């Protein structure tokens, strides 16, 4: 019997492996749904620098025991999505706008779709999407075709609306609120903590409204999309960058441009085209130069060019291979007609390695590129089109290893800032002491990251012991705390040195921002150990521990001083009075100076 091969779609894959994305059971899935939707809303608002107003609601569809059907809806005042993209953005996995090198909460193009998918497989109900965009309001009901990774639109309504923009997604799913509520509330509270510029309202199944008001109108400066850093490259990414440079365009895309720029007809001979092109060569666009060169060197007219597909051009043998309209495969020798021959070759061979590196990577200038190429023993004038597979691999490995590149640009990151972290902790915990710090940007494997840490102590924090709040790219991480790098670091610090004991009421907040947070799972719950991140966390925490230590000793000092002042001024007058009576004296002894002496005397003792 022969085995039957089959292929599954990405959505089918995630359907079968939904626990990879955190949708394991009704409890966890309810929490994940809220989380994915809220994070999308915040991402969207951040991107357009809109102060977010987020409204979360969870309502049960029936009375009775959990698990049961709930409607989760999250509504924002963000830019929303243009109508034509809504079905795909929300109905297709691995489809999104965040596969870029800048910090965002979302990374995989998966979250919202997974939530919708989970709702559909547990309740068979469609998702409802209401989008206000461009003074219109669109309402979709939609289901997913899981097998083919595509949305199925059940209904679409379009209305004129003077609502400002915003997206409201409503998913019906099987959930267990009684078990999930603690985590969900915690999630909302922590999101408010790390997003102090947002208004967040949570309307729970019992109609309790929990509200977090923004405490600042300042949105952290937005991340800027950047080129990749050489140390963060892999073979596939490098190959793609090289191919992008080398792409040959198809004639149909540029036909009109060619006719216009050359003022030519499509049936004119190659020779005539050559004439026309030579006249204004320097003024022609890249596309037109390329098409004309091909036509001239293959000696065919523009109509014919439209009908062939170039397979490859080999600069070492000066041969071009192409497939004709009637599917014949031809290899011909290229004529060396200038300037067309040189131009085609430069496109095919591509840039020199030197200029390729400078153009495509951050932190690489000419002198850095030159030094690096010397180090890997590549000729700086070598054309990227002539790199063999082995050479591409060698180049990649060298880029990852080379230690002289400057650290990656952190402009693609958007941390909260020590100031706002501190303000937010202050307003949420009302502590006696709070301080936050932002560590200088650093990088691991070519990905930039910034660590922010806050420590709060005492005041209205009553619970004894260290409570840790973890965040990554402004997302709270609530599960698997024990496995997280932050705990590891906390355990490794010698708190005794700072006279801090584990029964003190202490809150520690850690926030790691990166274009690539090293999560251990797609569920985004805990962060893997990276020595570079560990180093920043440790130093930041030590700094804050020292600050807390100073605060505590200052406080103790002040308490001692006032106690001291108290003791002498409380007891010396009594001593004077009693001794006067005992001695049967007529006036009090002159003891007053002793009160001052006493304070000084004790200070010296310390």
């Amino acid at each position: 019997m022969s085995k039957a091969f089959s292929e599954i779609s990405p959505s089918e894959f995630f359907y079968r492996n939904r626990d990879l994305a955190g949708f394991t059971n009704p409890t966890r899935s309810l929490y994940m749904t809220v989380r994915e939707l809220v994070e999308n809303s915040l991402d969207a608002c951040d991107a357009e620098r809109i102060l977010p107003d987020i409204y979360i609601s969870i309502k049960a569809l029936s009375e009775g025991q959990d698990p049961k059907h709930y409607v989760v809806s999250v509504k924002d005042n963000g830019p929303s999505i243009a109508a034509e993209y809504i079905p795909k953005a929300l109905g297709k996995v691995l489809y999104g706008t965040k596969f870029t090198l800048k910090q965002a909460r979302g990374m995989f193009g998966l979250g919202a779709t997974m939530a919708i998918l989970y709702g559909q497989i547990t309740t068979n109900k469609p998702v409802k999407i209401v989008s206000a965009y461009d003074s219109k309001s669109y309402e979709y009901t939609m289901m997913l075709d899981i097998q083919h990774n595509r949305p199925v639109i059940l209904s679409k309504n379009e209305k004129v609306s003077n609502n400002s923009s915003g997206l409201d997604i409503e998913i019906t799913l099987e959930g267990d609120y009684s078990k999930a509520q603690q985590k969900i509330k915690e999630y909302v509270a922590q999101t408010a903590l790390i997003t102090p510029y947002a208004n967040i309202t949570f309307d729970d199944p019992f109609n309790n409204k929990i509200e977090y008001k923004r405490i600042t109108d300042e949105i952290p400066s937005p991340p800027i999309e950047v080129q990749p850093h050489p140390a963060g490259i892999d073979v596939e990414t490098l190959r793609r960058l090289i191919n992008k440079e080398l792409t040959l365009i198809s004639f149909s895309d540029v036909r009109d441009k060619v006719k216009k720029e050359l003022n030519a007809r499509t049936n004119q001979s190659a020779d005539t085209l050559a004439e026309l092109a030579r006249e204004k060569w320097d003024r022609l666009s890249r596309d037109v130069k390329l098409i004309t060169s091909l036509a001239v060197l293959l000696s065919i007219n523009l109509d014919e060019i439209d009908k062939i597909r170039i397979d490859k051009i080999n600069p070492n043998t000066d041969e071009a291979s192409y497939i004709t309209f009637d599917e014949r495969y031809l290899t011909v020798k290229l004529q060396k007609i200038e300037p067309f021959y040189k131009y085609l070759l430069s496109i095919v061979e591509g840039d020199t390695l030197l200029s390729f590196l400078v153009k495509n990577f951050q932190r690489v200038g000419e002198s850095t590129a030159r030094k690096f190429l010397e180090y890997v023993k590549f000729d700086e004038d070598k054309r990227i089109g002539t790199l063999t597979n082995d050479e591409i691999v060698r180049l990649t490995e060298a880029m990852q290893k080379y230690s002289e590149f400057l650290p990656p640009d952190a402009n693609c990151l958007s941390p909260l800032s020590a100031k706002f972290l501190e303000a937010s902790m202050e307003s949420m915990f009302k502590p006696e002491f709070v301080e936050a710090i932002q560590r200088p940007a650093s990088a691991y494997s070519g990905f930039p990251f910034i660590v922010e840490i806050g420590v709060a102590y005492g005041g209205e924090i009553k619970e004894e012991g260290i409570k840790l709040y973890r965040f990554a790219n402004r997302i709270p991480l609530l599960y698997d705390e024990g496995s997280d790098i932050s705990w590891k670091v906390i355990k490794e610090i010698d708190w005794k040195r700072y006279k801090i004991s584990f029964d003190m009421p202490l809150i520690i907040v850690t926030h790691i921002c990166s274009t690539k947070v090293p999560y251990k799972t797609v569920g985004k719950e805990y962060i893997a150990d990276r020595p570079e991140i560990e180093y920043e966390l440790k130093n930041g925490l030590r700094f804050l521990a020292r600050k807390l230590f100073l605060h505590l000793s200052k406080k103790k000092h002040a308490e001692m001083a006032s106690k001291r002042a108290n003791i002498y001024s409380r007891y010396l007058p009594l001593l004077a009075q009693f001794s006067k009576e005992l001695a049967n004296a007529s006036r009090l002894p002159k003891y007053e100076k002793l009160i001052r002496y006493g304070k000084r005397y004790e200070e010296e003792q310390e």
Partner: protein
Amino acid sequence: MVRGMKKSKSKDRESTKIRKERVKELLTSLGIKIYNDLDNQIFPELEIPSRSVSNIVYDKRLKQYILGDAIIKRSSSNMRHLRSFTQLVWLAFFVNKLVNEGKTSTLRDIYYSSQAFNMDFEDQPESDHIITDLEALISFAREDFNIYPEERSSIFGDLTIEYTVRGYEGRRLNLADHPDGYLIGPSLSSAEFIETSAEMVLAVEKGGIFTRFVEENVHKKFKALIVDTAGQPPRATRYLLKRLHDELSLDVYILADGDVYGEHIAMVIKSGSANAAHLRELTVSDAKWIGVWASDIQKYKLPTDPMTEADIKRCYELKNDPRYQLDIWQKELDLFIKMKRKSELEAFAKYGLTKITDDYLPEKLKIANSL
């Protein structure tokens, strides 16, 4: 007057007054020293004999625990001392007033009185502690400055006393006038002894036996004053026993339960306790323990109870105590340990209510006097 009536020596009769005068002197000079220091802008300091365990030593000659030479210096300049320093001076001031006005006060009264003077004691143990400090500082017992504990024991028998407390000065009373006996309180403690026909003092551990002895006319039959120590005797009672012994030359006999605690009651009357090592006026070193010995339990075939773990442990502790190194004390402890059983004084009732007074007491007194 009955023949053989004893009178207290007139020198001793003044003793109470003299002691009070001495106490007042000491308190006043303490006040003057502190007043002068303060007036000269010097932080006053006090030196108090240390009462820490390492400074409590057994004096073989005096046959009691005394304090060694270690001294604790308490300075009012030290933030950690200032509070207790002031408490101590307040107490000196307060008891000076008490003594002058002829009033007394209980330990608990002291604790509450402090509050009227804006002095704060954490709790009564703290004020008790300061009282002991003052005792150590001036080497007088708290009873000498009119502070008494609540616990009271009583006395019965032919002894005429004359009160010295305010309002009763000169009034006399015979302690055989009331069959329930008289409480050994401040007024009795400070009274002068006028005369007695008694030739000895019988200290018993328990109220029940005390009443039995009164009913059975033990005081007449044996010419005895009967004292109920109510367990381990309070210091006022020990002080009274000493005065009866010293001023009236009465022998003191002790009768307690037949167990390790009974034995220890006798020992404390004889040799004092570590807690009062700073005081020397509380022991009757030739008092005699007449029972109930461990050997008596066997000899009189008394009903017994088994000893507890704690009882046995206490036996071993006392075996190592320097006060217990003499013959009889060790021998009886050993026997208790061997028998692992104990008997109460009431156990004699098995053989009739008067067995204890008819047989046991005379036999034991005879043995005691023959030793």
